[in-house]
Each structure stands twice: as structure tokens, then as C-alpha cells.
């Protein structure tokens, strides 16, 4: 799911302030008001609700105790597993050269745009009842842990690869000549250097697993669901707002603490320097086995669920063909998904531009763009319902929450590109006779376009796969692809299962499209590659 992208660094501190204070404030007004109305106030309202009802009795309840400890436990277990599995894979990817290496590194981005629902369907297709592998893990903790790894293993791997690439080759060679064996070099030089990158990545992994909703709802079953699922069920089925509020407040405090820890860890990371990293080399002898094992593990955890969706959808297609998709609900869901995503994208583009321009030079606004990434969608949706009960049937509330989740991608991507734009290029254009808007049109816009496109693609992937908020605010006429899949999954019969799988496959293909747009090299990059 796309909100996992947030850890990727967006660039360095700005070099110049191109827009003076008062105009910046004007630009920031709209995004700030939006953030205030759509996330800060709802969360404050939620805190208020929780404050009244939190009591020691609630925490003494065994059922809730289990929910909370399991939420923490599964997040911690996912972190440990992601570290133990991810680090060796990352080492092999960073150090060995093999055919399709750069493609593999690019494909690691795929889970970042995959909707949670698609991943959950893939996991169920593999290890659910009548799973492809013949092992039924339903109602065990493994299903959720496996799903967590699908999303979070690539995050840890990418972070570790980045950390490994920051170690100069000379430092490794120095350690070797001083008598360290390759294993000792890893232990005494590479591990200390990669550690800070791993801690900050694991911090996010913990945050996402702990506050995960979609995976836990579909894979956790009765016993292994998380607190987020509990909040949803309390609100949606039991109408027990008091307990839900107390739990949500607990969640907010814990995730807030984790987010603060993450921000602190991230700031400690050294700014990327220009170093000569060790070039990857061809593995020799037993090293091939190492590499193959690493790639096998990668496929098992990060590729298999998607392949399973494809396979199962193919089976369903072969069985009943197009007829599974020919009904009123599918048409409604497709239309809604397209409509909501487009409108959300429009909002996200406007808000993203304003935020990025206003954030030039301001760390504070930059950090605020991070807010929608770390707050859980369930908490936001719950807060919105509490704060604006009169608008719960308004489509604009839904669209605004889509935009809230999507626009930070545009803002962060653009802010990074703006920072890397040297001030003297526009200055040169001005001195060559271009008026300000011509400077924008002929110099800045062509340079910012790739970042804008990437940001929009992430935003689109977020909107397409949005599940938590949609489920919370859902009304029958707002059926989207994700909620339809969830509905079909809950109904009995092979026909429903088949159509859920086909719809998941469709959603996966849409996410793939977003992925292609993100990873498609821009013209400049392509030219750079042609002339090494």
C-alpha cells in the first residue's frame, strides 16, 4: 500500500528561499486549513471522546488485553522476521551482480503501490482454505505475519541496500587488508554502518504493522485481528463509541510515540554523500547458491501472493469468463472507483503543489506533509464521523479523506524536486530574457514534471486501493472496487470467490499501471543511461 512510501528520503535541505514569507503563508493557507479540518481536529475530537471513557477497567478486560498485546506482538514479530530475512537478501542484492538485477531492485517498489486488499487476497489464495499450496493457515497467526512481510520486507531491503551503498569500497578493502575475513567485515564494518538505516526502517515497519487495518481484517480472523479492526467492529457493528474512542486514543498515543521516534531516527541518518560504493560482482561457486536462496526467499515473500492472485483469477476466468463481472454492482464499483480516484487526484494535485511551494525552506511544513502517512486511516475516519456527523452522508467528506491520504505524495515528491533545482538555473533563464511565467514554463516545469508524475501515480495508487476509510464511511451507493471485493469475499459460494479474485486481479493490474508510470524512466534518465 502506498503510504509505505513515506520513508523514502525526499532530498536535501533547500538552498534558497525563492518565495518571501508573506506569499508563502498565503500558499500554505489552503493545505494548512485542509490538514487542520481533515486530520488535526478529528484526531483531537477522538482524543476528547477517548478521554471521557478510558478507565482502568477497560484495560483489565482480558479480551482487550489480548487484542492490544497481540497487536504489539505481531508488529514486533514482523520486525524481527523482516530484519532476519531482509538483511541477508539486501546484502546479496547489493553485493552480487546477476542478470535482471536492476529489474529486481525496481520490482521491490511494487508492494509500495499494491492495495492491501490485493495482498490479502493473494495470501488467502496461497494459504487460505483450499489454498494453492494445500496448507490451510486460516485462524493461525501465520497468515497475518506473512501478509505483513509481503509489504514490509521490501521496505527493510531497500533501506538496507541504501545503507550498504553508502559504505565506500575503500573502507571495506581497508578492513580486509587489516586481516578481517568477509564475515568479520560484515560484522565490524557493514553492520554498524547499516544499523541506523535499519532502525528507522524497522520503526516504520512496526508502525505500519501495529496500526494495520486491511490485512488484519482479512487475515487475522476472529482471534488474530488487531486493535484497529476492533475499533472498526466496535463502531460499525456494536455502535460502542465509548470503548472505540478509548482504544483509538491508546492507538494514537502509541503510534504518535513511534512516529516521533522514527522522525528522530531519520534525522540522525547522515545526508547521502557522494561515495564510491563497492560495485556488485559476479558470484562465484557457492555464492551462487547464496544468491539463489536470497532470490528464492524474495520471491516467496514478495512475489508469490501476486502470482497467486493472477493464477486464481485466471482459473476463475477460465471457469466462467466475463459473466462474473457483468452485474450492476461491478459497474457501480468501477464507475465509483474511477470517479473518486479522479476527483481525489485533482484535489491532491492542487493541494500538493501549494504545499510543496509553501514548504520550500520550511522544515515545519515539510514535517506536516508527513502527518497523513503516520496517522491510521481508521482513526481519522472515526474522528471525522465524530466531528462531522451531519456530513457523514456527504460524498465530499469521502473525497476529502481520499485527498488527505493521497496529496502528501504529490507534495513530498514535488518538494524534493524543488530542492534539487539549483537557484541559478531560473536566474540564468531570467537573465536570458525570460519573464517569470516563461521561466516556469521553459525551465522549472520540464524539470519538475517527472517528480509530479511520480507523486500523482502514488496518489492514484493510494486512491485506487483505499479501503479503511471507504469501509468506515461507506454507503451502499459509494461501492468501490475494494469494498466490493470485501463484500464478495464475505458471501458464500465459488462464484463470489471467483469474482472477488477477478476484481482483485483487476485492482492489481491498475496498481501495476501506476507502478509503470512511477518507474518509467524520464527522458533525462533515459538519455543518461544511453551515454554512460
Amino acid at each position: 500500500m502506498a503510504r509505505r512510501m513515506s520513508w523514502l528520503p525526499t532530498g536535501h535541505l533547500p538552498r534558497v528561499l525563492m518565495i518571501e514569507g508573506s506569499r508563502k503563508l498565503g500558499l500554505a493557507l489552503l493545505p494548512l486549513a485542509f490538514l487542520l479540518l481533515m486530520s488535526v481536529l478529528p484526531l483531537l475530537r477522538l482524543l476528547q471522546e477517548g478521554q471521557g471513557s478510558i478507565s482502568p477497567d477497560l484495560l483489565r478486560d482480558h479480551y482487550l488485553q489480548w487484542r492490544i498485546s497481540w497487536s504489539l506482538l505481531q508488529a514486533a514479530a514482523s520486525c524481527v522476521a523482516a530484519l532476519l530475512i531482509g538483511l541477508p537478501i539486501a546484502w546479496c542484492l547489493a553485493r552480487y551482480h546477476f542478470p535482471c538485477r536492476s529489474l529486481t531492485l525496481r520490482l521491490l517498489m511494487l508492494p509500495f503501490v499494491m492495495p492491501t486488499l490485493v495482498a490479502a487476497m493473494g495470501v488467502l489464495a496461497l494459504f487460505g482454505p483450499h489454498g494453492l499450496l494445500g496448507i490451510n493457515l486460516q485462524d493461525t497467526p501465520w497468515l497475518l505475519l506473512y501478509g505483513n512481510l509481503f509489504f514490509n520486507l521490501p521496505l527493510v531491503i531497500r533501506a538496507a541496500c541504501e545503507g550498504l551503498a553508502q559504505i565506500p569500497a575503500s573502507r571495506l578493502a581497508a578492513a580486509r587488508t587489516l586481516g578481517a575475513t568477509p564475515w568479520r567485515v560484515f560484522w565490524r564494518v557493514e553492520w554498524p554502518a547499516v544499523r541506523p538505516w535499519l532502525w528507522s526502517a524497522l520503526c516504520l515497519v512496526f508502525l505500519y504493522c501495529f496500526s494495520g487495518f486491511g490485512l488484519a481484517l482479512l487475515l487475522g480472523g476472529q482471534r488474530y485481528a488487531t486493535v484497529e479492526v476492533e475499533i472498526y467492529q466496535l463502531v460499525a457493528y456494536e455502535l460502542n463509541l465509548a470503548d472505540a474512542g478509548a482504544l483509538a486514543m491508546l492507538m494514537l498515543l502509541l503510534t504518535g510515540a513511534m512516529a516521533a521516534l522514527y522522525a528522530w531516527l531519520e534525522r540522525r541518518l547522515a545526508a547521502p554523500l557522494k561515495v564510491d560504493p563497492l560495485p556488485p560482482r559476479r558470484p562465484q561457486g557457492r555464492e551462487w547458491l547464496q544468491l539463489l536462496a536470497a532470490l528464492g526467499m524474495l520471491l516467496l515473500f514478495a512475489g508469490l501472493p501476486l502470482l497467486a492472485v493472477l493464477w486464481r483469477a485466471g482459473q476463475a476466468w477460465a471457469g466462467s469468463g466475463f459473466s462474473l463481472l457483468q452485474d450492476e454492482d461491478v459497474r457501480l464499483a468501477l464507475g465509483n472507483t474511477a470517479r473518486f480516484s479522479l476527483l481525489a487526484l485533482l484535489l491532491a494535485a492542487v493541494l500538493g503543489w501549494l504545499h510543496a511551494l509553501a514548504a520550500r525552506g520550511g522544515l515545519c511544513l515539510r514535517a506536516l506533509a508527513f502527518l497523513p502517512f503516520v496517522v491510521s486511516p481508521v482513526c481519522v475516519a472515526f474522528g471525522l464521523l465524530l466531528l462531522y456527523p451531519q456530513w457523514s452522508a456527504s460524498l465530499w467528506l469521502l473525497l476529502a479523506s481520499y485527498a488527505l491520504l493521497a496529496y502528501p505524495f504529490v507534495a513530498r515528491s514535488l518538494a524534493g524536486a524543488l530542492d534539487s533545482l539549483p537557484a541559478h538555473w531560473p536566474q540564468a533563464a531570467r537573465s536570458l530574457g525570460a519573464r517569470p511565467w516563461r521561466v516556469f514554463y521553459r525551465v522549472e516545469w520540464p524539470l519538475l514534471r517527472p517528480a509530479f508524475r511520480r507523486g500523482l501515480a502514488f496518489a492514484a495508487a493510494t486512491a485506487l486501493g483505499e479501503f479503511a476509510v471507504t469501509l468506515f464511511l461507506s454507503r451502499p451507493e459509494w461501492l468501490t472496487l475494494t469494498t466490493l471485493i470485501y463484500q464478495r469475499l464475505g458471501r458464500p459460494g465459488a462464484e463470489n470467490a471467483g469474482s472477488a479474485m477477478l476484481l482483485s486481479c483487476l485492482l492489481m493490474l491498475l496498481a501495476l499501471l501506476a507502478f509503470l508510470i512511477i518507474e518509467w524512466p524520464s527522458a533525462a534518465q533515459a538519455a543518461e543511461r544511453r551515454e554512460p
Partner: protein
Amino acid sequence: MLQLEQVCKRFAHKRVADGISLQLQAGEVLALLGPSGCGKSSLLKMIAGLEQPDSGRLLFAGEDLAAIPVEARRFALMFQDFALFPHLDVLGNVCFGLIERGLSRVAARQQAQDCLQQLGLAGMEARRVWTLSGGEQQRVALARALVTRPRLLLLDEPFSSLDADLRRQLQQEFRQQLRAAGMPAILVTHDREEAFALADRVAVLRDGHIVQCATPAQLLAAPATPWLARFIGYENVLEEGVVPEHALRLGPDQPAAEVRRIIQLADGVRVCVVSAAGELTLTLSARELRQYAAGLAVGSLLHVGIDRAAMLRYATG
């Protein structure tokens, strides 16, 4: 001690070593000198064991190095950027090799402290490496390399990231320390002054082969090729030999040459003339310049001749 026999290595498009043979005596300092891309760094990496040669043999004390991994060769390599470990303090860096060689932490710290003291770094044990100046970093890197008593010291442009004054001062210190340790060393550099100042012998490399390997005095007295003569700093290089400054004769009985360029120096001028023998560059002191009452100007004539007997002939073989 170290012997290279017909070592060849090529990367995708480039031959970095083309049948290189070399010998290093005990206690000797050898410089590998050449322009960038001549293959000198790759040769150093092959000696260290970081790269494997495609063919040829490397021997140390009669033992073939092919099967010996980097860490077991006991050759210390010092890098251009010093490659100090940022997660360790100064003492931790110097201890690194000792601990890898199996010393206890206490013994390693003791030895490292002694070594730091010898190199004038006492009291810096707990400093973080990024707070050190360039010269201090260089000394810490040297301490880290020397403390393990390597059989051979390999140096990859160890002075090139320092500024000129500091470089000269450290080169002198360095030369004394190497002498005192009696350790053989191979120094890679593109700076001829550094090579001549530090090395007993200099091997000049070009495109993966050795053009000439001799003592600095021999190199200067009889360079092997015109290219090499230019590379080690001679200005007037002719087909038949090198014309050093003292082989140029001035005076009315010499043939006339046209002045092309004049560069003012602190104590004279450097003049570039076109003579019958070709383009020549000569330096005139302020005293010599006074002979020319009319002064020198571009386009005017200067009488310059070559004393053939004082010319340097190219070494053969």
C-alpha cells in the same frame, strides 16, 4: 621479497596490466608512477588481493599469493581517502587490525597506544575520526597500517587529498618512518615529485605496461622514451634526445629563433621559441635578461643553440 611475473588483467574494454613483471627488495620503497587510468591502482589491488590477475603470478618470499585471501596476506593498504571507520574512535581504528589478528583487547589497546605515541598522536585516542584534520587522519591511517607490522605496506595516493604545504611536511616525516620501520612499501602516485621524494625506485606505467623502472637519478639521466621524458617534467623533448636547460646555449653565434610566448616569472621569464630543431622552452634569469636591452617581445628573435654533448640520450632496453 615481492615478485610479479607477467601479470595480465583486463576489464571489459581496457587492458590495465599487460605482462607486468616487477621485483621488490627487502626494505625497498617502490613508486608506481603514471597518469590516471594507466593501471597503477589496479596493480596495487592485485598485490593486495582485492583483484585477481587474469594470468601471471605474484609471489611473496617465494610463496605464490594466488590462493591466499586478502586478509591472510598481511599487506597493509592505505587509501587516498584514508578509509577510517566512522563508527570507531581513533583508538578503535588503530586496534582494528590487531583484534582481527587475534590479539586480546587489552594487548591491542596497549600496542595501539604505543603506536599513536610514536606518531605524535598521543591524547587523541577518544577522538571521533571526522573531527580530525586531513594530516591527523593521514597519520591515524598510517598508525592503523603500521601497528599490525605488515610484511608490505601498500599506499594508494596517500598524500593527494592534503594541501601542498602539509603534503611536503608529511612526506618527509613519512620517509623517516618508513626507513625506521625498515618495511618494504609500494606507493601509487601520479605526482612525479612525490615519487622521486619518497621512492628508492620508480616504475613508470602507461596503458598497462611498465615503460621504465629505475632509480629517480637514472630516470632523470636517461629516460626511456620521449613520452616518459615529458611525463617526468622535461620541457624540451626531441626525437634524438632530451635537451635539459644546461644544454641550451645563448649568444650571437647561435642560430636565431623566433619568440612565440613569454611568461613572466618572479625572477626572470620563461620563453618559448621556434628554432630549426623544433619548439624549445627556456628560462632566462633576470640577470640574463638584462643583456637584451631592447627587451624581449613576441615575434622578436633570440639566438639559441643546443649543445649536443650535454643532451640526454634515451635509455635503451
